[in-house]
């Protein structure tokens, strides 16, 4: 049998007490966001390639429909109207495929290792939700730069820009949770890829991102009411264009959706490591 070790378990003695739950939650969210930020800094190619799609939407689709004047958007040129929609869309496209990264992390043992740390499930998934928002925010910044180059009539007040970023962060945190929940259900990368592709377009077209809701047939209007993306776009238009928006309702819906998303994702996440 083993003899007494040279250093008799001093390892146990100086262990600090566990922090309270709220600090644990805040600390994990900050930690996972910082780690994501470091990853983005080390490899920026993804940022650039991801920027191509919103640029095409604004420059080709937006410019064309701007000239056609086919879509009545009130006092705002169509391009201005479209810009917040494209911001929300490009953030959505990043978040909705985040589950693939989670499945990859499961396959690489990273998820098991993260889940074996003293991190409550909810803190882990909330951390992941906001970490993925870091990439979404980078998209928003790119779209904003493009808007500035195109001299769009957005409200450039820094407070309004900050509010827009907060709305995108909450919105894409929700879509990340949707993706992680789906990952916990389907457990396989290719299946999640298929589901992601199947739902992004309906989410996008079934929202007010491209056109005002009142132009849609009644059944599609019903879809936009239950589609969180509509509330995200509505909020973004409110702060960036000054269109009449119910900001409290928009933020309220997004925050409640995020809460439900975090709860669902924390319940489904352990399925991935079983």
């Amino acid at each position, binding site marked *: 049998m*083993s003899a007494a070790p040279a250093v008799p378990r*001093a*390892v146990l003695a100086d262990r*600090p007490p566990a*922090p309270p739950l709220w600090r644990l939650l805040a600390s*994990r969210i900050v*930690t996972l966001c910082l*780690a994501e930020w470091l990853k983005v800094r080390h490899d920026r190619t993804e940022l650039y390639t991801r920027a191509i799609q919103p640029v095409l939407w604004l420059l080709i689709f937006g410019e064309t429909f701007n000239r056609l004047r086919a879509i009545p958007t009130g006092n705002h040129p169509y391009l201005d109207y479209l810009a917040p929609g494209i911001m929300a869309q490009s953030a959505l496209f990043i978040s909705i495929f985040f589950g693939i990264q989670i499945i990859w992390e499961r396959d690489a043992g990273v998820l098991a*290792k993260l889940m074996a740390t003293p991190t409550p499930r909810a803190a882990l998934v909330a951390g992941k939700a906001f970490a993925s928002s870091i990439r979404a925010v980078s998209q928003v910044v790119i779209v904003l730069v493009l808007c500035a180059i195109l001299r769009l009539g957005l409200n450039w007040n820094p407070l309004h820009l900050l509010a827009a970023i907060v709305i995108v962060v909450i919105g894409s945190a929700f879509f990340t949770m949707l993706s992680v929940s789906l990952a916990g259900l389907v457990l396989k990368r290719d299946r999640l890829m298929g589901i992601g592709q199947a739902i992004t377009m309906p989410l996008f077209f079934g929202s007010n991102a491209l056109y005002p809701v009142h132009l849609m047939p009644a059944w599609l209007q019903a879809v936009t009411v239950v589609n969180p993306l509509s509330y995200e776009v509505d909020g973004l238009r409110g702060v960036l264009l000054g269109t009449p928006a119910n900001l409290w309702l928009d933020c309220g819906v997004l925050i409640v959706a995020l809460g439900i998303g975090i709860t669902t994702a924390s319940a489904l996440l*352990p399925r991935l490591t079983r």
Partner: protein
Amino acid sequence: MSEASLAIECRNLVQVFGTTRALDGVSLSVEHGEIFGLLGPNGAGKTTTIRILTTLLPPMEGMALVEGLDVRRDAMAVRRLLGYVPQQLSADATLSGYENIWLYARLYDVPRADRRRRIEEALTMMGLTEAADRLVATYSGGMVRRLELAQALVNRPSVLILDEPTVGLDPVARAGVWERVRALQAETGMTVLLTTHYMEEADALCQRIAVMHHGQVRAVGTPDGLKAGLGPTATLEDVFRHFTGDLLEEQGSIRDVRGTRRTARRLG
């Protein structure tokens, strides 16, 4: 912290996946400061045991204690005591070595004032100080394994759990990992539980081993004791063969094999 008499204790663990009894009444006792090996073919239940001990999988029946704490009831407290290195290469290739350890220092609530020192300590112990600022994508397989050990160490765990620590490594890298684990154990006195299906690894590294087969512990003892039990010239391979039946009988699902191959491939 109350002093538990055993570092790890499993009593009658049962785990059923579908129709397979992955664990069929596993009982184990690991003493403080031991390097203890779970030896067995693929599908013997080694990884399932580890998933229970790391609180990732609540046991269906039976109980498991780490330092006297119940993995089901006191999961968070158990996690604070553990260092865990999974079978796959789990370091983040898109971060530097330092950042990889930093991430786990934060996830284990290492106080800010101690963080830098503890990270540097872990890097030094694993011989990675020079490579600390390089992206892990540029590391060799052996270096990634040592980095993962450093990640697990930054928490100063009292129990270190290693799942197949040298799978896919070349002999030099493997000997390197053994040497670090031994030095680490001697220096800190921590308990090490590892799984392996390599006979020579169990022989070289472990003070005691448990031979597992079909979700059961078939034999427990020191490598020498187990060999002596079979005869004066018996090798550990004979012990393995004796307790697990024909060595050529194939165990494990395609998923195990695929996982192992993937790890081996990434190790290059």
